[in-house]
């Protein structure tokens, strides 16, 4: 049913419709509304057969999810930012053990400096952990990806992380078709675990593996990720049949076919970019955008095909590798067979900085006129940075960057408007 509803609430409804049996929760902004709403659905009796467990940390949340999944329960949790980092050992374990846990990551920056707003640093920090990572463009897609995630995870026996931009999606109210229980039941079959801790048929899960077999076990994780490259579009196709709309898949091209410039990005920024692309098209510029829906496994072939062999490529990223540059960019470069000569990175939206249509249009202007540097930071206040660099040259005890910068800005403590 189409509702005007908050993204978090709609995701909670969708997760509940997938009939999770264990939901473990530890609150962290901006993920909290999701597990709160699932808690209410459990308590009110609408979500039956689910144990809602309040745990003492994110590390415990993922550990409980691992135990629950190994015990044959469909397990779900959600986190963000520092919460994800705090559970990271268990995040790797869930993937290494091949347990089909579904987790929402309400993307948020990582400190220091402490910051509660959106960027993709958290998702990038666990890029190599072995989880499938899907990025939602809208709240409708966030809802739909969660439903697909349970089916996908259990088919592959791999954990799936659904990334949705904190605040921008989690706290946005918009029209969302919340899937019905009947539709979800037709799409997500009962959990049939590939491995199970069962007292009737005792096995162990989590053996120590030495140099003789570690590579092989790890390779299997990679092989399953490669299987996901087929499974993800298949799952999206079945979803489209049952739900009557297309969501998910590997990539999402928009007006790329004849484009001279293609922007590549992930998550909620894509909608804004599409608006900007339409306006550039009105000016006669052949511009398009490629959304990366599936970031892990990375769809090298689909991305390479969509980018073609001549267009100038601008990767807009909400995270970067300090001391290097773009993270998504390196994957995109691989998809372009290493052709970096037509590739630029624009780091944007860090720590919740709004990405305006005006700034995006300026990026495309620069791209059209060949003015884009290989790496640039959108709307960077360069004088502010240069002031601090000069201060460091002037004296050894120049003090903490964050406080100095805030003082230069005349801000007592950071905050919006």
């Amino acid at each position, binding site marked *: *049913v*189409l509702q*005007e509803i*908050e993204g978090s609430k709609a995701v909670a409804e969708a997760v509940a419709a997938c009939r999770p049996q264990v939901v473990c929760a530890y609150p962290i902004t901006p993920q909290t509304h999701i597990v709160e709403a699932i808690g209410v659905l459990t308590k009110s009796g609408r979500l039956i057969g689910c144990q809602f467990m309040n745990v003492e940390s994110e590390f415990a949340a993922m550990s409980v999810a691992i135990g629950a999944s190994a015990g044959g329960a469909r397990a779900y949790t959600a986190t963000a930012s520092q919460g994800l980092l705090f559970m990271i050992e268990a995040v790797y374990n869930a993937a290494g053990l091949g347990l089909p846990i579904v987790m929402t990551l309400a993307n948020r920056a990582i400190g220091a400096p402490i910051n*509660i*707003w959106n960027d993709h640093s958290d998702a990038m920090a666990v890029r190599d952990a072995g989880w499938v990572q899907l990025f939602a*463009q*809208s709240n*409708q*897609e966030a809802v*739909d990806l969660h439903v697909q995630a349970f089916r996908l995870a259990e088919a592959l026996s791999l954990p799936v992380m659904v990334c949705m*931009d904190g*605040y*921008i999606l989690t*706290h*946005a*109210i*918009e*029209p*969302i*078709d919340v899937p019905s229980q009947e539709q979800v039941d037709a799409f997500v079959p009962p959990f049939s675990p590939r491995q199970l801790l069962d007292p009737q048929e005792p096995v162990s899960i989590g053996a120590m593996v030495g140099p003789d077999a570690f590579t092989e076990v790890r390779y299997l994780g990679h092989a399953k990720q490669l299987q996901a490259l087929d499974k993800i*579009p*298949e799952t*999206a*196709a079945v979803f*489209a049949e049952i739900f*009557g*709309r*297309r*969501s*998910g*898949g*590997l*990539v*999402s*091209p*928009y*007006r790329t076919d004849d484009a001279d410039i293609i922007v590549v990005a992930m998550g*909620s*920024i894509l*909608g*804004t970019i*599409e*608006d900007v692309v*339409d306006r550039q098209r009105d000016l006669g510029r052949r511009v398009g955008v490629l*959304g990366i*829906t599936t970031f892990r496994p990375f*769809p090298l072939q*689909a991305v390479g095909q969509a980018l073609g062999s001549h267009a100038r490529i601008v990767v807009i990223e909400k995270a970067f590798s300090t001391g290097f540059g773009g993270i998504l960019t390196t994957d995109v470069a691989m998809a372009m067979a290493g052709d970096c000569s037509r590739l630029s990175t624009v780091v944007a939206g860090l720590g919740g900085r*709004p*990405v*305006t*249509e*005006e700034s995006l249009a300026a990026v495309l202007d620069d791209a059209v006129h060949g003015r884009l540097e290989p790496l640039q930071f959108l709307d960077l206040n360069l004088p502010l940075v240069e002031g601090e660099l000069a201060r460091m040259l002037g004296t050894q005890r120049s003090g903490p960057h964050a406080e100095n910068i805030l003082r230069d800005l005349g801000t007592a*403590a*950071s*905050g*919006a*408007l």
Partner: protein
Amino acid sequence: MPRSNAPTTEAGHQPDALQAGHQPDALQAGHQPDARTSITSPATPVVSGHRRPVQVRLHGRGGQGVVTAAELLAVAAFHGARYAQAFPSFGSERSGAPVAAFCRISDTPIRTRAPVLNPDILVVQDATLVHQVDLFNGLGETGLMLINTSRSPDQLGLESIVTRLKPGRVITVAATELALTHLGRPLPGAALLGALAAASDAIGIDALTTALSERFSGSVGAGNVAAALAAYQNVSIEIEEAPARAARN
């Protein structure tokens, strides 16, 4: 009356425009048959409505229900068969700290997630913000400002914004007083939205009262509806009498 209200639908019903096939972009059949592609929007947006898209920025202080007001505005627009998007601009959530929230309303699907920098309508829930925050940033001369105060714009030192906007585009609403009368609590959101329904065609008053009744039950719901209706009537009368008043002056 300034406008005829769009027909509201019963709770749970799909808005008319959506039934007529104007579905949100996620529901569009899309134009790229490849299963590997994701949600796509039509290359050319479907334009059928005659109402202009509206961008609203709401300012207030933490605890005054600014974010809730933006949500209610979006829900009311949804009941009026329009697309709507509402989202907050979060700071650290402290009571009393300046807060802003945004709402976009359109007859076509809304894709952008950028903050509203050039609002058509500015809603100010707390007049003490006037000289503290850059409230009027991006508000053009055709803009509309609704401000919660029982004083006049001149008394608030708003002459510059009054002269910048077209005549009659700064509307004062004693929203806190209306809320205290009808709700018993100083939460000005419902009254300001009632005033907004009177002063623009962004939402209808029936859609607003539906949204308020859905969100708040019992006496709280009734109080909010009463505050919204009172502000709607006050502002409607003010707008009707404005030409006569201008002629006298």
